[in-house]
């Protein structure tokens, strides 16, 4: 790779892969692994608790103001993607930016509903369980969309975005 630029700082990457691991493990420990499942859920909540403030205090590509675009702009970008003429973004593109917001929000809600289930008052309560399961399903749907977006954009830009999230570097814009 020619002179690559640092895009994803170490904290962003640690948060990303810790979240990947904790979401995958939480999914795998749904049945019969209650104690593990709870601790894994707290890990994912801890990631959100670190990542949200980092979205205001962190390095350029980590900040929400750098990648959360208004709906109109996001739609316009989506149209350029469909037309095949979208520009490259060093950080998240507008669609990816909204995906980050949705993923973090969904992880937060699924984690909080899971914690609620463990309180004396709501232990075993059906509607809490239903909400938790519904949110975990919507999270899986978002993960699938996220992976599809990463694969699509990787091919389109001829740049391995999974690797970029590992080493943090990307090809410069110009």
């Amino acid at each position: 790779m020619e002179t690559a630029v640092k895009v994803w700082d170490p904290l962003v990457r640690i948060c990303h892969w810790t979240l990947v691991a904790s979401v995958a493990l939480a999914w795998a420990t749904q049945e019969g692994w209650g104690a593990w499942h709870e601790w894994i859920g707290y890990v994912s909540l801890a990631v959100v608790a670190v990542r949200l403030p980092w979205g205001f205090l962190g390095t350029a590509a980590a900040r929400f103001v750098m990648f959360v675009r208004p709906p109109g702009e996001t739609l316009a970008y989506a149209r350029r993607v469909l037309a095949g003429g979208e520009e490259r973004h060093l950080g998240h593109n507008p669609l990816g930016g909204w995906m980050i917001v949705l993923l973090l929000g969904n992880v937060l809600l699924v984690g909080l509903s899971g914690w609620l289930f463990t309180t004396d008052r709501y232990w075993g309560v059906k509607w809490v369980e239903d909400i938790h399961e519904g949110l975990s399903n919507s999270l899986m749907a978002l993960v699938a969309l996220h992976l599809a977006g990463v694969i699509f954009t990787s091919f389109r830009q001829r740049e391995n975005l999974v690797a970029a999230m590992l080493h943090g570097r990307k090809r410069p814009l110009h």
Partner: protein
Amino acid sequence: MKNVVMMVSLLAGLLAGGSSSATGLATCDSGPKESWQPQEKLEKMLVAKGWRINRVKEDGGCYEVYAINEKGQRVEAYFHPKTLESVPTQPRR
């Protein structure tokens, strides 16, 4: 670029792998439901013991009870619907 597909499918596989197991903590050989003792009787029994019951449902032919026991611990306990005796569950992992 093939690496992207490989890496992503590896992660997707990890996620999908976890979804195949769906078992409760115990099973009861309890026959048709007509022969079961009523759920209310179990609830009364447990309340008399000092439990606070949040929910009772059926799982694996047993009554599954989510409750706070007399020591104030949250428990997920199984009872045989014919005898209303406690059914041992897998240790909590």
